[in-house]
C-alpha cells in the first residue's frame, strides 16, 4: 500500500515537493544519496531467499507483503567487501522504470534537500569507480555521492565482458 501511496505522489501535484530531495544512506564511511522519488519504502533486513545463477550482488528475493522483490547488496555491487547484516542494516525499496528492487545498505541516514546549485557533476575520470555516481552534492562540509538508479539496475557491458573472460 505504501507503494501505491508513493505512486500517487509521483503522479500528483506533490511531485514538486519531492524535487531536490535525497535519501541518504551509508556504506562504510561514505554517504550516498538517492533521489527520493524512486524510493518506495525502507524496511529492516528480511529473510532472503537465494536464487541460483545470479550475480553475487543479487542476494535473492524477499516477500514484501505478497510482492516478490529482488534485493541487491549495494556493497557487493560496488565491489566493496561484504559486511555481515545487523540490526542497522536496511533495505531501501526503490522503483525505477517499473522494476522494483531492494537495496541492502549499512544504514539509512536522513532525507536531505540539496538545491541544484550545490550539485556538481563528476569529471569523466576513472570510469570504473564513478559510473554509478551521477553527481556529488555538497551539504555543509560534507559530500554526498548521488546515485544513478538506472546504472545501478542495468548490467554494464564491460562487466558482462569481464564475466565471459573469467
Amino acid at each position, binding site marked *: 500500500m505504501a507503494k501505491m501511496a508513493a505512486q500517487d505522489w509521483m503522479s500528483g501535484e506533490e511531485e514538486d515537493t519531492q524535487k531536490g530531495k535525497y535519501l541518504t544512506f551509508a556504506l562504510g564511511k561514505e554517504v550516498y544519496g538517492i533521489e527520493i522519488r524512486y524510493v518506495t519504502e525502507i524496511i529492516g533486513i528480511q*529473510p532472503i*531467499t*537465494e*536464487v*541460483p*545463477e*545470479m*550475480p553475487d550482488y*543479487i542476494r535473492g*528475493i*524477499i*516477500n514484501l*507483503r*505478497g*510482492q*516478490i*522483490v*529482488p534485493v541487491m547488496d549495494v556493497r557487493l555491487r560496488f565491489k566493496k567487501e561484504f559486511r555481515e547484516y545487523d540490526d542497522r542494516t536496511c533495505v531501501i525499496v526503490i522503483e525505477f522504470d*517499473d*522494476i*522494483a*528492487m531492494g537495496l541492502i545498505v549499512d544504514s539509512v541516514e536522513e532525507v536531505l534537500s540539496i538545491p541544484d546549485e550545490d550539485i556538481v557533476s563528476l569529471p569523466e575520470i576513472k570510469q570504473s569507480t564513478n559510473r554509478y555516481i551521477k553527481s556529488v552534492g555538497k551539504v555543509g562540509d560534507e559530500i554526498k555521492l548521488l546515485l544513478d538508479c538506472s546504472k545501478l*539496475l542495468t*548490467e554494464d557491458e564491460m562487466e558482462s565482458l569481464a564475466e565471459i573472460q573469467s
Partner: protein
Amino acid sequence: MSAQDNEQMLEMYFFETEQNLEQLETLILSGEKGTGFTEDTLNELFRLMHTIKGSSGMMSYQSLASVAHHLEDLLHYLRERQPASVDYSILSDLVLEGIDLMKVELQKIKNGDQADGDVAPLVKNIKEYLQLLKEQNNAESEAAAALAQPDHTNDFGAEADAVIYKAVVHFAADCAMENMRAYSLVHNLQEAVNILRFFPEDLEADESSEIIQREGFTVYLQSELEPEQIKELFMQTPFLRELEFTVADFGSAEKAADNGAQNQKHNNHTAANNNSVISVSVSKLDKLMDLVGEMVIAESMVVQNPDLNGLELENFEKAARQLHKITSELQDLVMSIRMVPLATTFHKMQRLVRDMSKQLQKDIQLQLIGEQTEVDKNIIEHINDPIMHLIRNAIDHGLETAEEREAQGKPATGSITLEAKNAGSDVLILVKDDGRGLNKDKILERALEHGLLTKAPAEMTEKEIYELIFLPGFSTKDDITEFSGRGVGMDVVANNLKMVGGSVSVSSAPGQGTVFTLRIPLTLAIMDSMNVKVGDCCYTIPIINIKECLRLQHHTLVNDTEGYEMLMVRGECYPIIRLHQHFKIKNAVTDLDKGVLVMVEHDKKSFLLFVDELLGQQEVVVKALPTYIKERHKSKTISGCTLLGDGSISLILDVGGFVQ
C-alpha cells in the same frame, strides 16, 4: 450530471447492453434449435429488446435504439397476436442481424467514435417482415386499434378529493422516438406524482410515436405537490418543446389504481434484470488474492509467535482455530472467484456454426459437452480464438458437402463436437468433426512446397506429419474463403495456447474425421506441488512432473566416465541431478544414502533429482519471478516462486529446464 456520473452510467450501459445482447443471442439460437419460440421465449426476447431500446434511447444512441425499437415491434406483434404460421428462421436472421449491428455500434461508442451505422436497410427489412406477417394473418392492424381508441378522458379514477391535473407534452420535432421519451417521462414522474392515465396508452406500439408527434402526449395526474413543482418536473424532460399544464375539469372516478399498479410492475420487471451478477476487474481480484495471502501469513505469525512459547492459552487457541478456519475458507473462495465455466465461450461457437452452416450450405450439428468445466478467467480469454479457428477449419476444410457425405454412407448432417473435461491439473478441450480427415499426402506436398520439411517424408510418423499443420504459413485449402484458409489459423492456435502454458495436438483418420486436443492448465495461479528442502533453501516441484520418490537402498549406482551418476531402477537407468551441486547450495546433504531421490518426468524423459528431504505436498499460489531476476536467469530451471505458510519464499522448479 457530473462527468463521472456520466462515465459510470456509460459503463453500466455497456455492461448491461452487452449482457442483454448475449442473452438474446442465446435465446434465439436455442429457440431455433428445435424447441421453437414458445410464449415464454418471446416474452423474454421482447423484454430484453425493450430494455436495450430503453437504455439506448436514454443514452441518445439513436442507431441502437431504432434497431431495438423495430425489432421490439416485431416481437411485440408476435407476442400479442401469436400468429399461426411464422417463418421463424427469418425472424432469427433479422434479430441476429440486429444484434450484430448493435454490437458493432456499441464497439464504436466504446472506441469513442460516433455510432453512425446505417440502420435503414435492416429497419426496412424488419418492417417488411412485420407487414408480411400482418397481411398473412389478416389481422386488424395495430394502428387501427390504437387510433380507434374511444374517448379516453373519462374512464379513469382517482381519489375523489384531490385535484387532477392534465398535462400535454409536445416534443421537439427532431427528437425522434417520441413514444420512448414519453415512456421515460412517465417513468420519471412516477416517483413524484400519482399518474392516473396517459394517452396514447400503448407506448410500446410504433404508431404512438406518430400520435404524440401530432397531438402531443397527454398525462393525467394527481399529486400533493404544488402545480409549479409539477410543472418544474415536466420541464426537465429532454427535447421538450411545449407544455400545456391545466387542472382537469372533471372528477369522475373509476379504477386508476390498477393502471398504476400495472405500470409499476412493468418497471420493476425491467429493473430486476441482471442484478445478481457484477463484473469486477481481474486486477482487483489479483490484489484481493495477494491480500488474503498476506493475511494467511499474518495469521501464522500471530499464532506461532515465539512470545507464546510455553504458555497454556486455552481461549487463545480456540480463537486462533476459528481464525484459521475463516482465513482458509476465504482463501478457497478467492481462488474460486477466478474460475469461470467455459459455457460462454462454448455458446459463442453456436453462432459461428449457425452462420457458417447457412453460408456454406452444409448441414451441421454442434454438440457441446462439459461446458460447465471451470477454467481460470485469464486463460479463457486466450482460448476463445483458438477454438474459433479450429471450428472454422473443421467446417470449412473438414466437413464434406451433404452429397459427398451421403455418397460415403455417412449421415447428411455433419457433426462437430466441442468437449471439455478435467484431466488432473489440466483441462482438455476436444474439437471433433466427422469429416474427411486430414490428407497426409496433401500435407506433405504442401510442406515440401513451402520448404517446411526438416526430415525425409518416409521417415516421418503419422503424428509428425499431422503436426506440420501447426507450422507458420501452412494452409492446404486451395482457395481462400471468407472463413478460413489464409494459412495463419493453426499457427495462431498453437501460439495462443503456448502463451498460457498449454499445447495442441491432432489425430485423424481418413474418412472418419479429425480430433484436435487442446490441453490447457486449469489455472495459472494455483498448482499442486511438492516442497523439498536442500540445505537451508526450500524448492517446489510441480506434482505433475513427479513420478515417484525413493530412497537409495539396494539400487545399483552407475558412474560414467565423465563423472555423471546414474541409478538403475527396475531395470531402467536414470541420470541423477544433485540439486545442491546444480544450484551451488551450501550445508546440503551430499551423501546419496541420506537424502531423497525424486523421479521427475518431462517430455517423456525421466531423471532423478537429489534433495535433502521432502517437506510435504501443498497447493501453492504461483507468483511470477520479478522481471529483473527473470531477465538474468538464463538456464530456465526456475519458473516462478510461491509463498509458504510462514511467509518465506520457495522457488518453483521447471523440470523441463534441467533436460537440456
